[in-house]
């Protein structure tokens, strides 16, 4: 069964709205705009869509979110729901969509997500709603912020493996270097390790520039079966492997602070694809905070456990490196509108694999890995995408 979804699903449309500070548009409007853009990219009309997956928006929660978006679009799907696994949502729903297509529950599925954390919420509201991942009785009352949750992981990694603040900062520097080549990125001015360390401490050892952005934006893809994909307007991008790992919800309950469920999600995805970390031409790794990427590099097998810091310092993840990471700039430099954040890593991967990434196009982009995680390293999904179905 490990290969049951390999090569069966293709992404045939991809679209991002304007991102960063996008005032005057509600999350629903951004979600609809993204969906229509991805359908146009695929050459798929509304009447051909029989599946819709969304995620709820913090800035505009709707009880029946996907149904409301379907109604707005006037599409009438037979497969329709919204998902919330935080930052893992993007790739979790891609996994569900692949299963739905393989089992005939739907044939053409639009996955669209948007939020407006920057323009439709106060900073305090955004902080509070994001930190609600904590246990309401036994964590949240202490006033712990989201950066501080991740700082607990960073401190533990530093104590266990000798990782340094300079090594975490390398992630931010690398993402910014990629963003410099992306005209849509919210932050494009190059930064150095010293700039990161000189930025204000938010939650030790994390500085301001170790933290992702707060943004508005929407993004969507259209997925269908490999057979149907051949009739679409764009070259298909195939799903080769997918796996999930869910180890805890609350960080105080994590069995291991420095090794995550990415070990499980990665192993399952590699097994399905019949590929390993060394086969990846790029990786888009969830980067809510810099330590997240360092742990993911280790847990997904791009370097040994405890060697993430040294690996980053080789420059491997930067433009021109042996494993470019977050080629659009990631959530550290491109944009981060909350739960949809990893969608932009997915659309970027589609463009890289199609050869449509413009100035930042990688010289070799045959196969790549995308990884999302939600909660506090709680809910992991890894996806391997490729230009060829097998």
């Amino acid at each position, binding site marked *: 069964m490990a290969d049951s979804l390999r090569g069966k699903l293709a992404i045939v449309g991809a679209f991002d709205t304007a991102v960063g500070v996008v005032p005057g548009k509600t999350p629903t409007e951004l979600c609809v705009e993204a969906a229509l853009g991805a359908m146009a990219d695929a050459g798929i009309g509304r009447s051909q869509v029989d599946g819709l997956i969304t995620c709820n928006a913090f800035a505009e929660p709707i009880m029946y979110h996907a149904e409301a978006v379907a109604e707005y679009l006037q599409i009438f799907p037979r497969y329709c729901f919204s998902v919330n696994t935080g930052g893992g949502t993007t790739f979790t729903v891609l996994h569900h969509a692949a299963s739905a297509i393989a089992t005939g529950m739907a044939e053409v599925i639009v996955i669209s997500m948007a939020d407006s954390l920057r323009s439709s919420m106060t900073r*305090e*509201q955004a*902080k*509070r*709603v994001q*930190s609600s991942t*904590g*246990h*309401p*009785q*036994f*964590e*949240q*009352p*202490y*006033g*712990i*912020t989201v*950066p*501080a949750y991740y*700082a*607990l*992981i*960073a*401190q*533990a990694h530093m*104590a266990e493996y000798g990782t340094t603040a300079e090594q975490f900062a390398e992630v931010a520097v690398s993402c910014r270097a990629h963003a410099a080549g992306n005209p849509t990125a919210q932050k494009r001015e190059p930064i150095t390790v010293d700039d990161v360390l000189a930025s*204000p*401490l*938010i*939650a*030790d050892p*994390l500085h301001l520039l170790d933290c992702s952005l707060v943004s508005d934006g929407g993004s969507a893809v259209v997925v269908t079966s490999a057979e149907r994909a051949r009739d679409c307007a764009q070259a298909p991008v195939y799903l080769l492997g997918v796996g999930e790992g869910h180890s805890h919800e*609350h*960080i*105080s*309950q994590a069995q291991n*602070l420095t090794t995550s469920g990415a070990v499980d999600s990665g192993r399952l995805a590699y097994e399905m694809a019949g590929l390993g970390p060394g086969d990846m031409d790029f990786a888009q790794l969830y980067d809510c905070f810099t330590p997240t990427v360092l742990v993911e590099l280790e847990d997904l097998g791009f370097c040994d456990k405890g060697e993430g810091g040294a690996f980053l310092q080789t420059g491997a993840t930067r433009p021109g490196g042996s494993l470019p990471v977050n080629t659009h700039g990631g959530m550290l430099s491109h944009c981060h509108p909350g739960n949809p954040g990893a969608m932009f890593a997915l659309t970027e991967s589609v463009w890289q694999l199609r050869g449509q990434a413009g100035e930042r196009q990688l010289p070799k982009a045959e196969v790549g890995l995308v990884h999302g995680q939600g909660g506090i390293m709680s809910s992991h999904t890894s996806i391997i995408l490729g230009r060829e179905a097998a």
Partner: protein
Amino acid sequence: MGAGNEKILPPVTALTEPYWAGCREQELRLQQCDACGQYQFYPRSICSHCGHNELTWRRVSGRGRVASFSVVRRPMSEAYPAPTVIALVDLAEGPRMMSSLADADPDSLAIGQAVAVDFAEWSEDIFMPVFRLVTEEKQP
């Protein structure tokens, strides 16, 4: 969504009331499993080790060690002082809990340091368990 000048108070349930009653009496209480003898945190209706559904509240030592920590420089809201030290504490009886470290010098913290529980009065009903650094010789 609470007002910016109010701390987040724990929503106490029937199952967790003995924990918070203990805090009001300056005692840290954990559930111990009647079947396997293991302690657990947070309180649940079942044992997180063996699944047994009979558990007994016990007063525990309140001693532990810092498993990790962070100094929160940008607080959640005005209700929380900054800097505040948040910590994961490995209790002597086994479970790990989140708490804050009271009166800790942010520059001299380290993972593994010994701590002991104390209680901060937040309201008539809520005394929050917090921890203070203790010298090693006091650690049993």
